């Protein structure tokens, strides 16, 4: 009696299916890189250089921009160029000379953010500017007397942190850094010197903040 092909085929198929039933795979979830902002005004901290895979850090030193006005110039309206105690000349981006201290102050940083598309495009750099610098004896100088010119050695085109003047008693925009980019400028500060003010050393602190949306 000839064997039934259909029954024979069914018996062959059953064992094969047992081997192809879906089984669990192991799953690894990868989460995006951490958003990061780094801001440097003056001397920064970086382990190595960016191109060498260095990492940014905190430099606790607060740099100073200053000027001593000659007696014969006080209040004449002749702008007085300021200088900085920052020694930052090279960019951590590529370790090339970028600024010329003490005349120029380095301002730069980066914004790391995963993902693409719209939203969270740029980090904003602002400056919280006090109304005045004070000499501690009641004498004041408006912060609006201080301005800066922006440049960068070897740069062409617009600066990311362009030239400007402080707006006394405000939080003003200095510039922005697009997502996943490094931006830097060199600032040369100037005191307008338009008024005779009492003798003394006038001090004030501007707080620069880099914030990501």
């Amino acid at each position: 009696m000839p064997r039934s092909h259909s029954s024979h085929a069914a018996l062959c198929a059953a064992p094969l299916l047992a081997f192809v039933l879906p089984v669990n795979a192991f799953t690894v979830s990868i989460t995006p890189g951490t958003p990061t902002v780094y801001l440097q005004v003056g001397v920064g901290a970086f382990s190595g250089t960016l191109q060498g895979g260095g990492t940014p850090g905190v430099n606790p030193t607060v740099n100073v921009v200053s000027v001593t006005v000659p007696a014969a110039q006080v209040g004449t309206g002749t702008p007085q160029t300021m200088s900085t105690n920052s020694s930052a000349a090279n960019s951590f981006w590529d370790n090339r000379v970028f600024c010329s201290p003490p005349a120029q102050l380095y301002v730069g940083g980066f914004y790391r953010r995963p993902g693409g598309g719209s939203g969270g495009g740029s980090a904003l750099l602002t400056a919280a500017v006090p109304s005045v610098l004070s000499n501690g004896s009641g004498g004041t100088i408006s912060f609006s007397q201080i301005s800066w010119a922006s440049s960068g050695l070897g740069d062409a085109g617009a600066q990311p942190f362009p030239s400007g003047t402080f707006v006394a008693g405000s939080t003003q925009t200095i510039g922005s850094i697009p997502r996943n980019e490094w931006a830097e400028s060199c600032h040369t500060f100037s005191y307008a010197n338009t008024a005779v003010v009492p003798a003394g050393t006038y001090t004030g602190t501007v707080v620069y903040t880099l914030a990501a949306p």
Partner: protein
Amino acid sequence: MRDPGTFARLALASALLSASADGRAASNVDTGSPGNLATSVDLQFNITIPRFVSLRVGSAASINTLSFAPTAAEMASSFPVLATGGDIGGSDVTVQVISNAGSVTLTAATLTADLVSGGNTMPWSTLAATNPTGSIIAPAFNTGSTVLTAGAGIVNQTGSWRYIWSNPPNTLYGAGTYTGTVRYTAATP
């Protein structure tokens, strides 16, 4: 097996990031979620203004000579005589006092006891100055002083002085050119 180089960099980053805080610095780092990501850095500004006092009488760059040349008729009239040579014109000179060191005291000291022409002398008292503009009163020669009061530590005044030779009546002086120099001084405490 992890790349030891990568591990070292990650460890360093972790250490540095953990040190990042709200403390002010010249460089700073922050990591976190979008919308809650910000880092701040301080920059200090110092402007040093020295104490100074500035005094100007006449031209800014040179010593003026005021010349009185009365005619015979003017001599006979005994009327006061005006000079020439002031930087403003005629008998008038610019006077300016600027200081950031408080109130200023002006004095006028003659370098000789009298105006002199050869063996003849003429007293300084024959000369006087008024202030046709501004509020700065010319101090009397050798005896007086003018105090300019500071406002918020500042004196910044500009005006003019006009010099007059009194041409005293019933007084004859020998012919000649009588000369003398006055030194004005502005002083702060």
